């Protein structure tokens, strides 16, 4: 047995009356990628953030290479050997990539008269980015010009260039597309092969089984079980995460594509700049249409176009009744709903309450004469969504910012389902959601389909696309490359060849 790089013993952490971690021991060994998995609130993020200096344990002991380990901050921890890439963190938009990378350390590039030698700094930044496999971004690029995924990669570079012994990756992959993920996986493997260690936190069971060497399952602030690679088994892991056997099916149980006769919405010859070239799709009532591809294949803008939120350069979106969808307002009149990939920015008002977020889309459902808003009627409307979707919350007036990712997403669903949406455009609906909620969402989608509603599910996750869609449309470089009908015989490999 190798000696661990980091030993954590009897770690306890409570938030007010909530026990986040109760007496947890965890060792991290050189040359391993250790997965941490568990539902929201299981303590997986808490334990890793304590190791990385983001917060302090109430009690317990940590040793790093045998010495006592008490980092005062994340920066302190990083400089001493443990770096963390966090789920939601910030890069500064107004400045360049290089300035973000060397934030607070620009003094190492002295120019004349106390200025900064930008050329040297940018060169060093390019080097750091290339070292992790990011080729097409230069240090001089303004941060704001990058998309979400690339910004995330810059954050990764920022941590990795400090050459940490232990790299903590917390839910980072939910922000990344396939390409981004493969960059990250390569990096993680490289660290492992150099005898360093990676702590990898994810909701995604398939991903974690693929990438990790060992796996630790947490539940309710305690470690439930460690798995070695040869013990990996999806059902066993799920069971230990949830603490009970999962009842029923995860995805749809049937394997026959089906839909009603009537067309729900039709997109015809849609083009949008570089992103989309002459894309046409038809969605029928009672149908789940999956759209898959790499992150830049154009499927995300297509979702917005279907909802009228983005005007295509050419082509149009028409409902089955012949109404042209030219704006969000028209789309909503036609009972369309849109769940964005960027949930916290585009689907929810975080400072508002659950009630505000659900009620805002459904006011015409309960306003008297479509005008007068009464508290009593609104409460009934909102409470129905909270109970139908089993949203875990203190009450309807709780701010959504306080909810877990899964419950936030349930609020978004409640907002659209409550008003009786007939066509739901779901862009990465299960992003950052734990498997319990995921499963509930899949069941809900199946129910909606059976009620004759139409669902367009845009996703970067193969299993859910295959598991849920009646029809699976694959896109690449702004065009549709193939269409698969639902079947048991679909395989990842077959689909991926149309994506890349």
């Amino acid at each position, binding site marked *: 047995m190798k000696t661990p790089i980091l030993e954590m013993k009897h770690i306890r952490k409570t*938030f*007010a*009356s*909530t026990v*986040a971690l109760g007496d947890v021991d965890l060792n991290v060994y050189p040359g391993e990628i250790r997965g941490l998995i568990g539902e*929201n*609130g299981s303590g997986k*993020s*808490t334990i890793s953030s304590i190791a990385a200096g983001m917060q302090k344990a109430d009690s317990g002991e940590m040793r790093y290479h045998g010495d006592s380990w008490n980092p005062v901050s994340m920066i302190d921890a990083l400089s001493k050997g443990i770096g963390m890439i966090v789920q939601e963190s910030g890069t500064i938009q107004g400045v360049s990539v290089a300035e973000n990378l060397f934030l607070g350390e620009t003094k190492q590039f002295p120019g004349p008269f106390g200025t900064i030698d930008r050329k040297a700094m940018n060169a060093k930044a390019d080097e750091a980015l290339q070292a992790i496999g990011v080729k097409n971004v230069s240090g001089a690029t303004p941060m704001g010009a990058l998309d979400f995924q690339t910004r995330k990669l810059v954050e990764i570079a920022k941590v990795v260039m400090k050459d940490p012994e232990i790299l903590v990756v917390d839910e980072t992959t939910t922000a990344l597309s396939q390409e981004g993920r493969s960059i990250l996986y390569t990096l993680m493997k490289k660290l492992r092969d150099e005898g360093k260690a990676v702590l990898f936190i994810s909701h995604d069971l398939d991903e974690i089984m693929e990438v990790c060497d060992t796996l630790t399952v947490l539940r*309710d602030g305690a470690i439930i079980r460690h798995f070695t690679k040869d013990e990996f088994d999806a059902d066993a892991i799920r069971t230990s995460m949830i603490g009970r056997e999962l009842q029923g099916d995860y995805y749809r149980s049937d394997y026959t594509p089906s839909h009603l006769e009537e067309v729900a919405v039709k997109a015809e010859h849609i083009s949008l700049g570089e992103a989309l070239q002459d894309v046409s799709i038809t969605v029928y009532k009672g149908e789940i249409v999956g759209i898959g591809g790499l992150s830049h294949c154009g499927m995300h803008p297509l979702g917005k176009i279907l*909802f009228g*939120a983005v005007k295509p350069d050419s082509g149009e979106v028409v409902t089955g009744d012949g109404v042209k969808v030219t*704006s*969000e*307002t028209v*789309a*909503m009149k036609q009972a369309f709903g*849109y769940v*964005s990939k960027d949930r916290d*920015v*585009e*689907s*929810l*008002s*975080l*400072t*508002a*309450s659950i009630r*505000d977020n659900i*009620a*805002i*889309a459904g*006011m015409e459902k309960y*306003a008297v004469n*479509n*005008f*007068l*808003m*009464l508290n009593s009627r609104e409460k009934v409307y909102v409470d129905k969504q909270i109970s139908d979707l089993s949203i*875990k919350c*203190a009450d309807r*007036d*709780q*701010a959504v*910012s*306080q909810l*877990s990712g899964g419950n936030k997403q349930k609020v978004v669903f409640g*907002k659209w389902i409550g008003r009786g949406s007939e066509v739901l455009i779901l862009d990465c609906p299960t992003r950052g959601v734990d498997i319990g909620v995921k499963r509930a969402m899949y069941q809900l989608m199946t129910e909606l389909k059976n009620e004759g509603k139409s669902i367009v599910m845009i996703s970067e996750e193969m299993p859910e696309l295959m598991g849920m869609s009646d029809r699976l449309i694959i896109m690449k470089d702004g065009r549709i490359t193939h269409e698969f009908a639902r079947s048991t015989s679909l395989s990842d490999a077959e689909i991926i060849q149309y994506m890349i």
Partner: protein
Amino acid sequence: MDNEAILRKYKRRQRLIDILPVVALAALFAILVATVQSKGYRLDMYLKIVFNEGVVLAVVATGAVFIYTLGSFDISLGASTLFSATLGVMTYNATQSLPLMILVIFGVAVGCSLLSSVLASVFHIPVFVTTVAMMSVLSAIAAQIITTNGGAVGGISIPSALVKPLDNMGFKIAVLAVFWLICFFVFDFTKIGRKQKFLGGNPVCAQLTGIQVNKYAIIAFVMAGIGVGLGAFLTLVYTPSVTATTAGSIGMNIVVAIVFGGMPISGGPRSRIYSALVGGFSYILLNNILKLLIDSNIGYGVSQIVSAVFFLAVVYVTGLNYRSQMLPR
């Protein structure tokens, strides 16, 4: 997973912060009464003065809440109060018609407000920017009109007997009450108010929920314009003259009033229509208390400094409110 205790605590604090502005108003009122009594001054007169000072601010700020709710900002409200009062006085002096004067005051006030918001939406610039421009333009034009027509007196005026009958508490309270109730209804009981609050919280999400940003911005500016019109009219009722400095302090006082009323300056879902009313009167009460307690001969500005400190304290406390507290995952 049981976070109930934290939530209970959080909610308790939120409720407390929600009622804090009202408690502060009541406390300030009590302090004023006690101070005036103990100094042997005429309480009835003092209350009237405080009301007169506060009513214009409360009316204009209540209209302005609609703009602040959107997370927007209108710096030109003082200038448009001056401008509409100016044109109102000019209209009366040209036509001798009171109804026409009132019509012009409201028309101009709403018109200025609309112009700010329409310009902003046409040119796709933040409405704050257009209001900065409006402020300069309106006060310059008003000053030009006033100095050209005011001559040696330095101001223009309507005959003081014209609106004197209206210079009483009953009329002003009625105006304030009616306007406030209308705003309250629109803000809390119609789709308009609800959509504006949502829009202020997250405009991107609002747009993707079918809320037309421009439409609700324009409605907000119209409401504010009505408030400005009323404010200009009440200003003339109190003093029938207009000088280039009339209503000069209103613009900034609105911000103070709204903050004192416990509303986040960034607007959004925690906006409250009563903020302007409560905050406006609190601010006026505070100023008067400070002037009574601090000997003016100590030096100019002492009471301003104290009230600035108070302002920062209020911002800090209300800040606790919307600095979102994340629960541990």
